[in-house]
Each structure stands twice: as structure tokens, then as C-alpha cells.
């Protein structure tokens, strides 16, 4: 039997219609784009959004801005729990940034209209001018190629907003039911968060680009006889509903339940303080990287621009340290990117219209670069020119929405794997006497220089075997020594990626990125009882 094109269209239409009905929640937002009245927010590719964007830029330029850019964001968030609770939020925002005599002005509001964007353009320039008394301050923006009207949609397999929220709630409830079928096991929470942001960017240099970005995350925690684990497979990712359906979650849950049962059999003993060989699992390493090198290689922090907020950096002199400062063992190579498929910090262009790329922060243990924006890249111009490289931004300017001014935020990070075929279990097998830790929570100082890690799941290892569960252990470290103490890095197969949130700035902004890392064995970790007083 053949199916005619006509039938296909009809069939396709029906599928589309029923999917929309199931999806249940139409876009509730309307905007005034100057065509006589209100209309539903158009797709971000719409030519009229482009007009709106450049209207804002021109208003800022007319008001005296040497440079101006604008972002328009349309954001949808949905939270669904296994209990069937659904929370929907939708937000439209526009923010204009203007540079006058080396000062930035910024103005934002929740309205897309021709009058409002022009007002914001003028207001941003006015804000900048208000600071511009006295000698001009030189802001050099690293060159960036003009983007000519391009659009990018983050590749996701299933747009989560096209899936019925009730289907998702049922799916989550089924996961918790699955767990409860196994005696003694329980799952405390199960929830899913979805996020899609459509974003338009225009600059006075003539760039214009639009993107549709997705983020999905889930939470499922397991408990068995007082031992708890979180499902790491659902940390934030630049993915759609396939974050859940694209992996064998039940297999993963069964595997975790098996480990929990093994863990529960181990005797429990209190921590004995001392120095230990320690095997850290991949998520512990991702957290350690994020709090140490990921924090310290933010160039704005290094130069004191965050001093009154989250802090500075234990790298004090970037130009003297770049290319020579040893931050870790030669096997340590840390790259950063904003273009890795599926990662939580992935975009095509950052919030200054800079195309995303991969760059190396630490090469063979030596500090090689910093996280930069267009402005901060120029602070390293001397180094870049000296090494024959172009002075360009690494595309780390981000803001959660157009309501906030872009800041330099942490991009996706990736720690290169070691040469051997090593994973968490085989690393443990190679340790005669030591500790192994899962899911370290790290509390680091305001320079990323020293910290304390804690975890609910620490094993004592004797002769390559887990012999006990250690409670109350604290892992004290200095970042400058920590990464020089790496004995072994897990192999390619052991690298896992986790989505994370980071806060920065005044007022504080929260943004997302991913960190990928293998498990790592450290030679001499200082282990303390963090609850023991002096």
C-alpha cells in the first residue's frame, strides 16, 4: 500500500495537532511589535524582532554610545514532579548595554515594544554617561567578526515543551515506582526541569544573531539503609527530553541500587585523620576543578573586578604566569569550551556575539590561558601578541536573561583523560591502603586557593578492596598543591560529564555549564575530621 503525499500531510498535521493539544499549554505571552496591536511572541527568527533589536542599538548610539548591544530573550521554564505538580513560567525581557567614555551603562525591562526598546537604548547611554565624569577610561573590545543575520537552534532530539507534562509526570512516577519495587529501596524526590531560551543579539558593529537554547535537568535520589546516592546522570545538560529517554535510566538505577546494597554491607567506622592516597570519582573531580582552576582562571577575578563580590584568584599575576606557571602535574590538561554538544554551557554565540570555541586553560600542567570576554581578552593583548596569537575573546560573556548584564562566567570545562584504561573501580584495585570518595561537596575560599571537601560516601581501601565505610571525613586541600599531587588520571572510558551552576557578580547571577572529568588518584590527601574543633 502506498501512502500519498496528501495523506502524509494530513497525517502529519493530525500528529502535530494532537501533540499540541497534549502539550496543553500554549504560549501565553503577547507583545507589541508596532504592527497595530498585540500578537503572540513570534519565533526569534522573525524579521520584526531584528528591527526591534537595531532600534534599541540605534537609540543608544544616538544618545552618545561609542558601542552598544542589545539582547532580547524569551524564556520558558517548566518544572514537573513525580507527584504531578507542574510549574510553568514564561518571561520576555530586553536589555541594552552602552559604552560611553569607558563606562558601561545597562538598562533592561520586561517589555518588547518599539517605544520601550528605544527608551532602554537612551537609558543605557544615560546610565553610562552618569559615571563618565573625569578622565575617560579606556575600554578596548577585542575584535570579533561581524555575524550577519544567522540563526542557530541547539540540536535536541525531543523538544521537552512538545511533550505532554502529564506524560513526563507519569514517567517520573514510574521511575519512583520502579525503585520502590526493590525491598528496602526508596527514592525521595523525582523531578524534571526544562528550560528553553530564545535569544536575539544585535550590536552597533552590525552583528545580528538569534539562538534557541535548551537546558534539561532531573533529580532522583536513592536511599537504602541510611546510605544515599543522587543519580548523577541527570545533572543539567544542553539537551531536551532525551536526557531522560536517551539513556538506560533503569539500568543505571539498578546499578546504583546494587552499589548501595554493597555499601550497606560494609562496616562503618569513624574517620582517622592523616594523609591518605585518595581515589576521587568523576563528579568529585568535576567539583574540585570547578572550585579551584575553574574559579582561579576567571580573568576578571584575577584582576580584582570581582573583589567585592565572590572574590579574587590565587593566580595573582596573569602576564607573568601565562605559559610558565606550573599549576599541576604534566599529565594535567584542562580545556574549556562553549560548543560541546549536549553540555549545559553550550551556545553558538556568547552574549557579545562571539562565536563559541574551544581553548586550553592548562596545557601539560602549565597555565596556558584565562577565561575571557571581549573586554578582558584585551587585558592579555601583550601575551597573545607575544605568542603570535590573535587577541580575541573566548566567548565567556553570559547572563541568565536579557534582564541581567553579561559577565564573564565559567564555560564548559574538560579535564583530559589519562593514557591508561583506568576507572574508579580499577583505580581502587590499585591502591594498597587509602580512601576512595564519591560525590565530594567542596567549600573553597574566596580565591579558589584552599578548600575543604566533604562527602557522605567515603570508603576505606585495603589491598585494593573496599573494607569499610568511613563517616565524618573532611578533605583539606590547597589548590596549588592538589593538582601537583595527581598520581593517576582515569582513562577515556571513565570520563563523565556533569552540569553545574555557578554564581557570580553583584547582584549575583546564576549560570550553567558542564564539567567533564575522569576519576583521579591523589597521592597524599590531608584527611581531617571537619567537626573537630581546635
Amino acid at each position, binding site marked *: 500500500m502506498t501512502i500519498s503525499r496528501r495523506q502524509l500531510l494530513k497525517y502529519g498535521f493530525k500528529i502535530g495537532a494532537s501533540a499540541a493539544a497534549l502539550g*496543553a*499549554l*500554549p*504560549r*501565553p*505571552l*503577547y*507583545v*507589541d511589535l508596532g504592527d497595530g496591536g*498585540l500578537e503572540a511572541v513570534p519565533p526569534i527568527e522573525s524579521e520584526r524582532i531584528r528591527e526591534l533589536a537595531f532600534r534599541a542599538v540605534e537609540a543608544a548610539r544616538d544618545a552618545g554610545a561609542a558601542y552598544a548591544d542589545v539582547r532580547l530573550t524569551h524564556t520558558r521554564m517548566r518544572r514537573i514532579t513525580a507527584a*504531578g505538580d*507542574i*510549574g*510553568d*513560567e*514564561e*518571561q*520576555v525581557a530586553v536589555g541594552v548595554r552602552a559604552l560611553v567614555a569607558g*563606562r*558601561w*551603562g*545597562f*538598562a*533592561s*525591562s*520586561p*517589555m518588547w515594544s518599539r517605544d*520601550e526598546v528605544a527608551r532602554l537604548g537612551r537609558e543605557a547611554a*544615560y*546610565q*553610562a554617561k*552618569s*559615571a563618565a*565624569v*573625569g578622565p575617560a577610561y579606556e575600554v578596548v573590545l577585542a575584535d570579533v567578526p561581524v555575524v550577519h543575520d544567522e540563526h542557530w537552534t541547539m540540536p535536541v532530539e525531543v523538544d521537552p515543551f512538545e511533550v505532554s507534562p*502529564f506524560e513526563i509526570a507519569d514517567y517520573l512516577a514510574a521511575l519512583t515506582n520502579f525503585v520502590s519495587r526493590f525491598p528496602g529501596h526508596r527514592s525521595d524526590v523525582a523531578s524534571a526541569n526544562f528550560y528553553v531560551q530564545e535569544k536575539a543579539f544585535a550590536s552597533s558593529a552590525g552583528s545580528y544573531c538569534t539562538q534557541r537554547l535548551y537546558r534539561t535537568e532531573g533529580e532522583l535520589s536513592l536511599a537504602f539503609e541510611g546510605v544515599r546516592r543522587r543519580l548523577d546522570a541527570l545533572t543539567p545538560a544542553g539537551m531536551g527530553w532525551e536526557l531522560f529517554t536517551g539513556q538506560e535510566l533503569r539500568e543505571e538505577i539498578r546499578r546504583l541500587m546494587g552499589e548501595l546494597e554493597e555499601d550497606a554491607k560494609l562496616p562503618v567506622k569513624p574517620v582517622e585523620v592523616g594523609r591518605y592516597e585518595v581515589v576521587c570519582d568523576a563528579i568529585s573531580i568535576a567539583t574540585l576543578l570547578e572550585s579551584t582552576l575553574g574559579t582561579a582562571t576567571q580573568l576578571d577575578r584575577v*584582576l*580584582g*573586578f*570581582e*573583589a*567585592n563580590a565572590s*572574590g*579574587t584568584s590565587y593566580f595573582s599575576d596573569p602576564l607573568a604566569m601565562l605559559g610558565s606557571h606550573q599549576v599541576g602535574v604534566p599529565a594535567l590538561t584542562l580545556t574549556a569550551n562553549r560548543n560541546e554538544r549536549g553540555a549545559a554551557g553550550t551556545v553558538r554565540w556568547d552574549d557579545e556575539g562571539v562565536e563559541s570555541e574551544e581553548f586550553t586553560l592548562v596545557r601539560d600542567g602549565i597555565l596556558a590561558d584565562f577565561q575571557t570576554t571581549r573586554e578582558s581578552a584585551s587585558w592579555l593583548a601583550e601575551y597573545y601578541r607575544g605568542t603570535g596569537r590573535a587577541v580575541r575573546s573566548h566567548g565567556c560573556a553570559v547572563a541568565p536573561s536579557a*534582564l541581567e*548584564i553579561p559577565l564573564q562566567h565559567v564555560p564548559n570545562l574538560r579535564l583530559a583523560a589519562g593514557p591508561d584504561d583506568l576507572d574508579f573501580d580499577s583505580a581502587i584495585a590499585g591502591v594498597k591502603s587509602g580512601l576512595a570518595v564519591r560525590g565530594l561537596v567542596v*567549600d573553597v*575560599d*574566596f*580565591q579558589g*586557593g*584552599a578548600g*575543604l571537601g566533604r562527602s557522605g560516601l567515603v570508603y576505606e581501601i585495603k589491598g585494593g578492596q573496599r573494607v569499610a565505610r568511613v563517616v565524618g571525613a573532611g578533605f583539606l586541600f590547597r589548590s596549588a598543591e592538589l593538582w601537583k599531587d595527581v598520581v593517576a588520571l582515569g582513562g577515556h572510558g571513565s570520563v563523565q560529564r556533569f552540569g553545574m551552576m555557578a554564581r557570580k557578580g*553583584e*547582584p*549575583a547571577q546564576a549560570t550553567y555549564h558542564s564539567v567533564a572529568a575522569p576519576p583521579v588518584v591523589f597521592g597524599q590527601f590531608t584527611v581531617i575530621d*571537619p*567537626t573537630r*574543633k*581546635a
Partner: protein
Amino acid sequence: MIGRSLHDGRILSPDDCRALLRRVHALAEGGGDTAIRVSSWWHGELRWARNQIRTLSDRRDVRLTVIRTVRNGRDGAVTTNQLDDASLEAAVRAAERQSRMGAKIGRGVGFYPQFPHYEPFPNAAIWSDATFEAAALARAEVARRMIAHAEAQGMLSAGYLEVRAAMTATLGTEFPELRTGEHAFWEQPYVRWTQAQGSMTVRNAAGTGSGWAGLSSYDWRRIESASGALAERAVQKCVASQDPVALEPGRYTVILEPQAVADLMEPLIQSFNREPPEMGLTSPWRLAYDEALGLWRTKLGMKVVDERITISHDPADPDQGIVMHPLDLPEPVTWIERGVLKNLGHDWATEVEKLKGWHAVRGADAYRMSGGDTSLDEMIRTTRRGLLVTRFSNVAVLDGESLLSTGLTRDGLWLIENGQITKAVKNFRFTESPLFVLNHIEQLGEPVPVFRPTKREGDRLRPAIVPPVKARDFSFTSVIDAI
């Protein structure tokens, strides 16, 4: 049109808000309960670093959440930031669809008793025209003056000044005809408040010294008039903190400046809630399970800290500025009175026999801690060996029962020997409980307002008035290099 007024008024006016609530309420179809929560905020911000003003900004947003519960349905909630009729109607329809699709037979609506009406505090210290009218130029002028203090000493400063205004309303009680069912309990008439904050970090070029000072208040004039003193204090702290020496970790007598006390007390202030200890959950106020009565007993009525300590809040206090909800008990509340735990906050729905009607006793947001009459200089002069602490950073609770916490000293730590400040000291990580400190007090000074701004846009004020404290045997567990 509402949109216009948002341009001009920055936050929604009472009239616009009233009209908006009526409009949204009228859009509900199919009966059941409706709740509408509106909030809007405006921020004027200024950031500087390396003695240069970096960014001035003017930002605003509005947020409307409609919660619909149709008959036998679940709660359907949709939030939007567009206030035109079409967007609002779509939001109400979406909330109704959510509610209907999760229907559970027999759930019912509207079974709550009438809600009492408390008068708002007409003169509560929560709104300042000076804050709302502080223009970008005024902020820039204050920043320039503060920067000049650092420049004069050849130091680098970074800082933040902010003025903000916010309002919220949830189906105002002034419209009894709009009250429906269970959501009526969340009703709140239009209330607006302002907040101003200023803080400054001063570092030397080598990064071997750092000082800080900050203040928050509902009133910008207080920040403006204190700005010179704040700048001077941050500069002096930076100058005096340069090139610190490492001391051995251990137990020290500490003189905690008011800001350090506030930073350390944060977990304690947030613990004044009744439900966790009465449900047997981790809380410093859980005493023991009473087998005879079959319930968890709390430490209410017991002496928990030094008798010199009283921690209270009072909505009529001109320095405290509490944004009250009609469900909050509209009276002063004393949490700890002369060392004895007197009150714990509780939710409106918690069945406690002593409740006078349907109200909540909110846990402490804003608070005042009693002090003494010892000046900071006097505390130093009477110390044989001890440490002077400017503030704490990264405070995290290790044990919810004892409130044992860990954290770091930041922006100025000095050794005191024989009544004199003798050396700048490298920062420490501490392992200590605020309850321990309040049981080892030697001297107390005069309580003063500290830096405790609300952080998230639209959040309520949380000012604190806190004394400097001298306490013994404070536990510092490791040295950190961070400055």
C-alpha cells in the same frame, strides 16, 4: 495601560495593581479557587573596580503568578511577566487547563475558615522616597567620593552601590469579594518597600592586604551619609592588614566586629522555627522524644545562651523595617530573652494550641541582638592575647543540631597582645558554633545596623542590628593563604 505605568512608575502603583488583580480575577472561568500574586521590582545599580566606575544599570521586571484550582482539580500555576489582557487570559486558561487535567475526585475547594484582618504597619520603616529617587548621578557621586579615599592611599577599590524598590500584592484583602477558598490565606494587600546598600573592598596593588566595609538600609540617605566613613574604614583595614603573618591554629579569644557576629549568627537566626524540632527533625531546638506523651519536646523555656543575650524583632522598630505579611503575628516577637528560648516561628497551618487565631509567627528575618556598653577599644585594651575579626565568609553548617559551622575570616584579622593590636594575621578557617560563642561571651558592645541586604530581586528586607562580641575559646582550625 499597565505597561505605561511600569515605564513611568518603575514599580506598579497601588491603583494599577488593584486594576490588574481585578482584571485577572475576572478572567477565571469554571469556578473554584483563584489566587493571583503580583510583584514588581526596580533596581538602580553601580559597580566599580580598580577605582573605576564600571557599570551603572537600571533594571526592572514584573512577575504575575496565577494559581487556579477548579473544582476537584489540583493547583495549576502559571507565571508570566506580560500584563496585557491577551497574555493574562492565556495564563489563566493555561492554569485552568493544568488544574483540570490533574483532577482528583472529591478534593473540593473552599473549606477554610474566614481569615482575620490585621492592620498593616502604617509607619513601618520600609519605604524611603530618597531611595526611590536616588538617580544614577547621585550613585556615581557617592562612588567617586568612596573611590577617592582608596586612591589617596594608593590602594585599589572595588565596590557596589544599589537602590531598589519592590512591591507585592496577592489578591488584596481590601477586596473581600475577591477572596476565594484556600488561596485566601495567602492574601496580602499592596505593600512596597525600598532597600539601599553600599559596600567596598580595598586591596593593595600586590594583593597582600584587603579591607572591607558595608552597610544596608531601607533608606539611601543612611548609605550616602555613611559612605565616607565606610570608605575610610575599608581603606584603614586594608592598610593595616598588609603582609600578614601565619599564626598557629587553635583556640583564641576573639573580638568579633558587629559584621562578623551577624555573619556567624546567620544559621542561628534561620533556625527559629517550630516545625522541625516538633517533628523530630534536626534542629538546635529539639530536646528529646517524650515517650509518655508521644511527642517531641523542644527547648522552649530553657536557657540556651548567655543571659546577656536577647534576640527579637519588632515591626515598629524604625531600624528594622520588617515587610509584614497579614498572616504574620503583627506584634513584636522575642526569640531569645535573657538567654532563654522564648518563641519559635511557625506556619499559619501548624496546629499549635496557643495560637491566637490563624496567624503565623514568622521566624526571624529582621532581628536585633542585645548588647552591652563595652566599646571596641575597651575590648581590645582588656585583651591579653586574642584576635580581632572584621567579618566571616563562606559560612556553612556542619551539624544542624549544634549549629557547628565552618567558614573563613576575610578582609582583616589582627593579633591583640597585652591590650594592643600588634600584627596582621593570615586568614583562618574556623570550626565553631554560634551557640558556643553566645555561651562564652566576655564583653558586649553597642548594637549597630550591619550589612545584610536581601539578595534576590523582590525579596523582603532583612536588616539586623548586632553588637560587637568578645568571646573566649573560639576555634580556628587551619590557616588559609587567601587574602
